[in-house]
């Protein structure tokens, strides 16, 4: 079967209701628990203004987490463009956690390994369970081109 085109998560704050189902779906599908701390993305609400943002992995072209990793535990799947972690190679130095500019990397203390979004191998559960359509998975190439055109 042909591989689907590489995807990217995008967030529309005007649609977000802060139900946190994206985080619930993420933590459940990865760890079989409902625990917002174990989600690979986070809905953040500014208590003063009520403004929302989502912190999630952008699978950057020049991924700082990947560059910061001293053991090669973080790598890019060249077909799907997904930036992944091999937890068996992770030594727990947390360099990636410090390096990520959007706070998408986190450290799973019990497992002793850094963790991040893997786009659920191309079928992101955060997208599937977002009723208002605030989190979408878009075609990476087309979306980046669209952004270029806006510059």
């Amino acid at each position: 079967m042909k591989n689907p085109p590489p995807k990217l998560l995008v967030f529309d704050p005007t649609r977000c209701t802060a139900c946190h189902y994206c985080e619930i779906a993420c933590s459940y599908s990865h760890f079989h628990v409902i625990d917002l701390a174990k989600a690979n993305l986070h809905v953040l609400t500014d208590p003063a203004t009520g403004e929302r943002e989502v912190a999630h992995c952008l699978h950057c072209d020049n991924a700082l987490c990947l560059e910061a990793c001293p053991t090669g535990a973080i790598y890019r799947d060249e077909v799907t463009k997904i930036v992944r972690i091999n937890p068996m190679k992770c030594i727990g130095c947390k360099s990636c956690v410090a390096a990520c500019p959007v706070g998408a990397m986190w450290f799973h203390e019990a497992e002793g390994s850094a963790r991040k979004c893997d786009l659920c191998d191309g079928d992101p559960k955060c997208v599937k369970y977002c009723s208002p359509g605030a989190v979408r998975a878009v075609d990476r190439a087309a979306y980046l081109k669209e952004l270029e055109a806006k510059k």
Partner: protein
Amino acid sequence: MKRYTIYLGCMIPMRFPSIEKSARLVFEKLGAKIADLEGYTCCPDPVLTRLAEDEFSLALSARNLAMAEKMGNDLLVLCNGCYETLIEAEEALRDDDLRARVNGILANEGTRYLGKVKVRALIDVLNEDFRPGEIAAQLKAPRPVKVACHTGCHMLRSKLHPRDRVRILEDVAVASGAEIAAYGKELDCCGFPCAIADEKMAMDILISPKLEAIKSSGAEAIVTGCPTCLYQFENSEAALKKLGKETDIPVMHILELMALGFGFSPEELGLELHRSPVKTFAQKKWGDVPG
């Protein structure tokens, strides 16, 4: 005559029978025939059950859809969560291969889903089939009630942008005689899912700010179309009261608002089963209406 098969879900018959009673009375007044879906099961839950067991979850939905299909009417779904589950199952099961696989599971009990049922949400049925004329024609006791509307997240799975989708409940409330109090947080979640994971966070970032905004808007009551959101608001108010923060705004279902406007008395609707002061409020506003 308009005919519907009604899907009540779990929360309405078990926790809010006043909504079920209002539904039966309101649709009868509107001249629609409601048929019960005998032997239905849980929809099931639109997120947690599906996360745990996707295909089992789909089979359960398909069984409900298959029973509705045999009855021939549109399936009128009264609960937001049930609506999202069933509409997504209906859409997924348009795929012939998937439907054949799920029908393989249903074959164990001799049921088969053909993919021919129309799933409709309560607010869409009220808006598209009865608003404004048929609703207005039944208004025996319109009262100038200022309400804050809360649509609920699962109802936002729609082609419309959420900010347009939430207008539908408001339009139905207006058609039912209410006045809308705009409070700026119409899209915010009731906090039910977040509270499963983190109760304090749900209270701090969602429930308290939302209730504060509603209070400041001058609303006399909250009106929602979702029984789970209603449950969450009422329980949160009770919790806030224990913390010394007075919040006792009545939380009503849109069908209860309509039933009161249609002239049914607070007593016959069973409004005392609410945790928020819905009955006291209704008696104050509609108490003079002869039942």
